[in-house]
């Protein structure tokens, strides 16, 4: 076999090896977990109307995203769950605590890539302003993530 043919064979093998390595790396590459400023975000309905608290909190905390009304127009989607438990009579009488117990967890996902880019959960045993407090906590942390990346 000629010298030229050997060189060509080696080059082909090298290219094939590099392509396969790149493909393998691509499969398990870390996701680009970034939410750009001004991204269009759709807040999906959450049980108990928590999505409304979340929209208000995003506006109040001046989170640099744009809330859109339709999922089709959005780049990102916020989904989640929340639970609010009002103070029972026993809690008021025995523990002297009138505040409600709030739990919420939200997930921000990229609609195009279907990847979850950010998630957060909050628990407040005695929430001073109920669901508003937990929603503002979510918005505050979302703002930190967007501004610090």
């Amino acid at each position, binding site marked *: 076999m000629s010298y030229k043919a050997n060189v060509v064979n080696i080059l082909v093998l090298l290219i094939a090896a590099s392509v396969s390595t790149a493909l393998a790396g691509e499969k398990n590459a870390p996701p680009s977990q970034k939410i750009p400023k001004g991204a269009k975000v759709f807040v999906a309905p959450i049980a108990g109307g928590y999505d409304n608290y979340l929209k208000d909190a995003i506006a109040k905390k001046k989170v640099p995203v744009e809330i859109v009304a339709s999922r089709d127009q959005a780049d990102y989607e916020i989904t989640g769950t929340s639970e609010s438990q009002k103070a029972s009579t*026993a*809690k008021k009488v025995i523990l002297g605590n009138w505040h409600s117990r709030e739990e919420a*967890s939200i997930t921000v996902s990229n609609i195009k890539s279907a*990847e979850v880019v950010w998630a957060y959960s909050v628990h407040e045993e005695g929430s001073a302003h109920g669901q508003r407090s937990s929603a503002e906590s979510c918005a505050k942390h979302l703002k930190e993530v967007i501004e610090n990346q």
Partner: protein
Amino acid sequence: MPRRKPLISQTPVALILCLAMGALTARLTAQETNSANTATQDQNKAADTGKTASGDKAKAPASDLKSAATDEGQLATVNNAKIPSYSKVYVAPIAGGFENYIIAGLRNKKVPLTVVIDRSKADYEISGVSDSEKAGWAKMLFIGSQQSNEQASIKISDLKTGAVIFGYSVHKTNSVRGRQSAGEACAKHIKQIVLE
């Protein structure tokens, strides 16, 4: 001279005092029991460690399923299965929205996995159940605790082969952060089987 009626009747006052004394006694007893249980658990742990060290050579593992007691729950892995880092994982909906707490836990515990919301794009699936029990009046009165009891159980299955490769269950009495704590416990143990 007519006898004056007291402003506060004596019977209800005595009743309230009795109840308060009862509650205080019960609370003290509960605290003693807790401390006794902790001491017993410590002794058991020490004994188990001794047994494991001596029995390792004598006994070979009988099955592929390995179980290990953790601080809060039970952990089971099949054939020491591992998940490659940044594998795509789909978290199936769980009653009460517990899947959101698991996803938040994965992020909080910095587990190197990519969570996707589309099952068809995923390599693995996390599914499970969860239950939350809020503190009742009796717990508040006798124990003085308003924290909930949480329990959850999850499993991870390989979507290509259909095999369940990991299982974990958690039970938290008096969970300080409710379902958030249970979600983070699940995430912490998932991290153990992810190759970094």
